[in-house]
């Protein structure tokens, strides 16, 4: 992605594009991501696959995704910054 043509140096500031308030699901392996993607109820809430283990969730749908993952028998951990809370 052409963020900036000027190069950063090892001591300088690194050019980045920041995506704020993103909702993601990260799985242990790609197979588990496939399993989640194949779940029809989740398909509507998953925007797409960012990497083979990372799925992008539609904004505002995290609770529904958590509930559906739990229905599937998973026990997802919820990470909000420093603290880890119940899923």
């Amino acid at each position, binding site marked *: *992605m*052409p*963020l*900036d043509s000027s190069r*950063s140096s*090892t001591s300088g*500031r*690194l*050019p*980045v*594009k*920041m*995506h*704020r*308030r*993103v*909702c*993601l*699901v*990260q*799985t*242990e392996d790609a197979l*588990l991501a496939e399993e*989640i*993607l194949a779940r*029809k109820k989740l*398909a*509507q809430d998953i*925007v*797409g*696959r*960012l*990497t083979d283990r*990372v799925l*992008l*969730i*539609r*904004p505002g749908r*995290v609770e529904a*995704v*958590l509930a559906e*993952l739990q229905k599937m028998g*998973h*026990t*997802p*951990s*919820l*990470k*909000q*910054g*420093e603290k*880890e*809370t*119940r*899923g």
Partner: protein
Amino acid sequence: MTESVDTLSWLDRVEATLNRYHEGLVREVAGRLVKPRNHWPVEELIARSLETIGNTPVLDRRVAELPLASRQTLALIGHSRQPVWALGNLIEMVMALGHENGLGAVLDLLNAGLLFPVLDTFWTNSKVKLATFEHWLGVVGSTTLLVFSPPEIAQRAIGVEFDLPELAVETLSPTTVLEADGAEFLLRLGVLWQRVAESPLRRTQTGGLFKRDVDRVSQDALLNAPPPDALVTVPDLGFWILSLGEVEGVIREQDGEVRAGALPTSWQNGLWSALQSMTANLFRLRVWSPIDGWRGGEEVIGNPFPSAYLLLLMLLAKLEKDRWSDCATLESWLHAHHPFWTGESVRPSQRKPWVETFLLGLAYPLRLVQAARSLEGNTLVRLSPLGRWVLGLGGVPPLPPQFPKTLMVQPNLEIIAYRQGLTPQLIARLTRFASWKTLGAACQLQLEPETVYRALEQGESFDSLARALEQHGTRATPQPVLDSLRTWANKRERITVYPSAALLEFTTPADLNEAITRGLPVVRLSETLALVANEEQIDFRHFRLAGTRDYGLPPERCVEVEEDGVTLIVDVVRSDLMLETELPRFAELIDRNVATGKRRYRLTPASLARARAEGFTLSLLETWFQQRTGDAATPAARLLMQGGQLPSPSLRRHLVLHVEHVEIADGLMQWPPSRERIAERLGPTALSIAEEHLNELILRLGELGIRLRPDAIDSPSADRGS
């Protein structure tokens, strides 16, 4: 009591309350508390009042200046360790101590700035400021009037003498003195927490519970079973635990439901701290009484029991060492002195004996009192060393012997917990990761996937659980138990959900590597993408933002459609991750132009067929076009999307009749004999004719004197090759 009482410090509460006072009242109260020599602004007076509350010598002088009734009132609050009291209960206690003007004693404290009203929503939501305390008393609300005195103040009054009799009974010293271990209510609160964590209780509008939940609580075997060392029967024991759980914060109300809260922090400070907290909260219980049991959850205004509880404990405090009293004697004194029972209008049902239920059913399990059986067969009571300490009348008693190795973990995932080794900390820990099955001298628990998941969700890990079982187990934890714990823990760690992460998109993989080398708290997701669980963790000194996209905002338009209706040009600077992940689902990347910052995708029959197979619908495509291009989906896109679902088109052979002028075509379309032979009008001067109507049309045109040129008639036949 309002929620803010629990969340603010007591001095914050005082400040907030003084800010709701009218200026005149602030000056009056501060005049007695601070005794200012100058005319200070109100804000300054409030600040100095707070300073005075923290100044022990000045505070002692102010307490000493009070009339005896007020000092005794303040001392009772101090002994109770409960800063918040119902106004009526304070008045009852003052009157029971022999003072006729109970309200006067309380008003003196309010005017002296040593006691403060708990202002309900009427005061906190209105612009009206409190001008006099009589004004506050006159506003009739739906809840009990409450007052509070910060511990810094009330504790200074402890030591004031009470004119209470020593109600000792003459008896030979009993040989066996009974003292509870103090664990009973802690265990039951643990059970209550688990029950509510499994399924919340639903509140009715009047504050009670729905029938299904009333049945759940009243029929719960563990909550309602008599304690193994029970001396009396406690009515509605399950609801007593429920009421205690609410004031202890073990359960909390949210959106009309009662849900599991946090297990009290006082439990982490040991048994004495946990019991002291529960004792202080005894005086806040307003929905359960030793006579009627649970009152349906509805707060009863004029509940005399909190004041009666404290008076009973203070009466026991008057007993000389090694002397005992009995419940009947104490009850007689209470009925003769407490204004609730001395009143003539008290119903006979309210005169039923209840002191035994309180002292032996509640105070005894809380380890506040010791019990004994006299030689005559009467049950005797006296304060325990812990009871004296809780009331501020004695030093901290030595802790009971510790037995850290108190769990027997069995291969079938059962845990036997020997009660003598259970501490509040261990009860809290066990409550989180195992399910209580029986309570007794040896309690039985069960490790289950759900209970372990719950513990993991609350910060435990396989290592911490295994360590806890090792630390408290009487022998090594069986391997099958460790295997189960590991399986359950691993399962949980397979999926992580980040509800509000920040993603950093680097220009090159080298930049991401550089960020990691610098030790920044990022998690690599791909060659150029890294995740930070919380934006606050980002040190922006290391980054130059080339763009920011907030996913809490609606999707941005960043796609243009070329004329062909299937080529999509993405403006990469304005695009976001959602677009980047959405597009590959239904379009193919053609090229990316780094120089222009544009990226081209194309809709193809194959890409849309693949999307359809994955659940992508026409309506999602329409929404996407509206959000990202600002227009409806192009006809070509709709065609490709619907492709195979459209009715099959038919291929038919038609002749085209070309006429010289529009008027001729109009006439042919209007004149019925010719109109019936024309299939459709193709253009201003072109008409389509089905082959089978050709001869008929030639005849009709002949009637008009129009003759078709033969070449036009012959060619279709030639095409047919007939």
